[in-house]
């Protein structure tokens, strides 16, 4: 990917990637930091040449950074939470956090990639280093798990009716 193409895709996708990382982090600052890490990594020499799709790359690298920071954050709780800066929350956002909180971390990441960022199963497999079959199975299991819960039925299933 050349510089011009990168910038065009970046402008188009960054907001969705940031939101996806915020939701997965359950923290605005951690999500933004993860996105920032990915953005910084993309500027390193030679990296951009190997990027095929900006949103997939940023999400994958940001997710990796997020996992690392969340692991470190376990030592920092509770004081780390003082560093967050955020706009006032709304009930809708809390609902999403609650809904996704019923999934295992990997399922949560895959669901966001599939249904919020619209990644194909091939792209998910590529990004997470898993097979396409595993990606499909993970999504199926996540949906089944959500469907079994009361909150799942009460929230997202209504959207289809």
């Amino acid at each position, binding site marked *: 990917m050349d*510089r011009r193409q990168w*910038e065009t895709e*970046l*402008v188009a996708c*960054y907001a969705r990637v*940031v*939101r*996806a990382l*915020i*939701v997965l982090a*359950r923290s*605005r600052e951690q999500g*933004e930091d993860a996105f*920032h*890490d990915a*953005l*910084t990594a993309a*500027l*390193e*020499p030679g990296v951009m040449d190997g990027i095929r799709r900006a949103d997939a790359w940023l999400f994958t690298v940001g997710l990796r950074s997020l996992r690392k920071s969340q692991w*470190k*954050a376990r*030592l*920092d*709780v*509770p*004081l*780390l*939470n*003082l*560093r*967050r*800066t*955020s*706009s*006032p*929350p*709304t*009930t*809708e*956002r*809390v*609902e*999403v*956090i609650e*809904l996704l*909180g019923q999934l295992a971390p990997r399922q949560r990441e895959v*669901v966001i990639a*599939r*249904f*919020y960022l619209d990644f194909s199963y091939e792209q998910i497999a590529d990004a997470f280093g898993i097979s396409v079959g595993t990606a499909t199975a993970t*999504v199926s299991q996540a*949906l089944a798990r*959500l469907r079994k819960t009361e909150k799942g039925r009460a*929230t*997202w*299933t*209504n*959207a*289809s009716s």
Partner: protein
Amino acid sequence: MDEREQLERDGAALRSHLQARIDLIEVGGLVTYLARPRRRHRLVQAARFSFAVAGAALLLIAALIVGTQFRLSRVTPATSPVPSPAPIGLSAKYGIVALTPDGFVVRSETDPNPIRRIETSHLFPQTVAVSRSGRLVAYWRQPTVGEDRGDVLMLYDAATNADPRPLLKVANENGGPLVWADDDSGIAFASQIFRGPAPGPPMKIQIVEIANGAARGPAKLLQYQRESAELGVVRPLAWIRETRTVSAIEGTIDGVAKSYVTVGEDGAVKRYAVSGSDQVVRLDDVIADPQTRTLAYLVTFRCQDGTPGCTLVRFWTLEDPQQALGWQATPGTTFMHLLWQPFTRNLLVVTRSDRGRFLTLQVWSSPHFGSSQSIPLSQSDASFLLMRPDGRAIFVGALSGSWRGDLIALDGTAAPSAADLTSTGGGAPALSITLDSNEAGRVAALPPAAPLLSESDMMAQVRKTAGFPDRIDRVSASLDRGTYPLAGRAPTWTVKATGEFQQNFRGGPGGTVPPAHCATWTFNARTGVLLGVQMTDAVANCS
């Protein structure tokens, strides 16, 4: 409906739901993610690295072209960070005290030639103390031939560079570590009756008031007594005039700190252990900040897996050691040095990566303990850390045949610059001083104590604490000004809020426990440090 059909139907519904909800999250402009101060250094670092690689691989001219192209293409209107500031410069307003084998020399930052050479046999940095303004240097002089036995406390005015003047003599005693009062109105010092080699007799703590460069009356002996013969050293850390208290650290003659002591001018003494059998604290690693009234010290201990060398930083409120907090280094990182940044609520922590052995200067803003800003250091060993008296810049350097290092602006207004602090005739840089009287006056006019945080400060902090995904419905705050004068309670803010709090610490991180509906935060009112959080379901008496 078969399984595949159900899956597709569920997927479509979930997609619709997630996109509708998540898209509500507000996101800043793209430029905000590149221009955030904490990360800016990494961008600079990445750019520098790209230039270095290009330079090694290509001819010089080709590297310049490629580098310029890369930089130009990176700085687009949509993504460019703020322009790099100019490097910080050395200033003739400030000088350096460099320790020599026979005393110390004083020089300007901009001129390696000493402007003053002072002989003294006391070579420890703790026996030379610089006033808060950076202008006055107090030190001990041994009696000259023909004088009565006993050290003389001397005062040197760096702004006038006049000959040093004697402040007082401690008859038949050796002078020990000393520290200025928080408002520069006096000096607290340790001394010891002259007699033979260590461990020797117990050390005393005395105070002397100073006005217009002279002592106001004789030194006053405080009612401090060591607890056991093992405690051969006591070092005053701070003298808070408002609380009439001298804070000190006691330890063994081999440099291991044992207990923190508060000694009141009225004779009250309180003592608190700082290290135990499994936790080692060095005397040199204990620092006190009279402005935020906080004690910090570095603890080395055996890690959980049995390997030695784990580190943590522990904080105490000077007047209330019960308010203790610890902050452990993350695996793979070691805390190396601690330093307070004057006239801020910041602690500077030098950390070392165990794998790469590279150093980082972390700026810990006390309301946000933990790194709020990280500055990569070019040295592999921070042999000297010299904070300018106004707290805006710091020298960090290593001994490598000469005293070279970096001058780093801590307020982010300038880029770091290389600095050589090697003095003509030698000397190890130890302290930064103020040579300009106007600059000294400006620094002296700054408040000696960090003001208590306001209710609005606390509210803002709580709203950050309970940010996304929490929700606050009602909130109220109350201030407890603490008790003085001696070792009472530090001032605290208590903030109570009702709402919905996902970060429910009763169950730890992970969100597996239901949200709480009442949260109570307690903060140190001077530093903003979070002292405790309580989450409950009952909303009665919660606001």
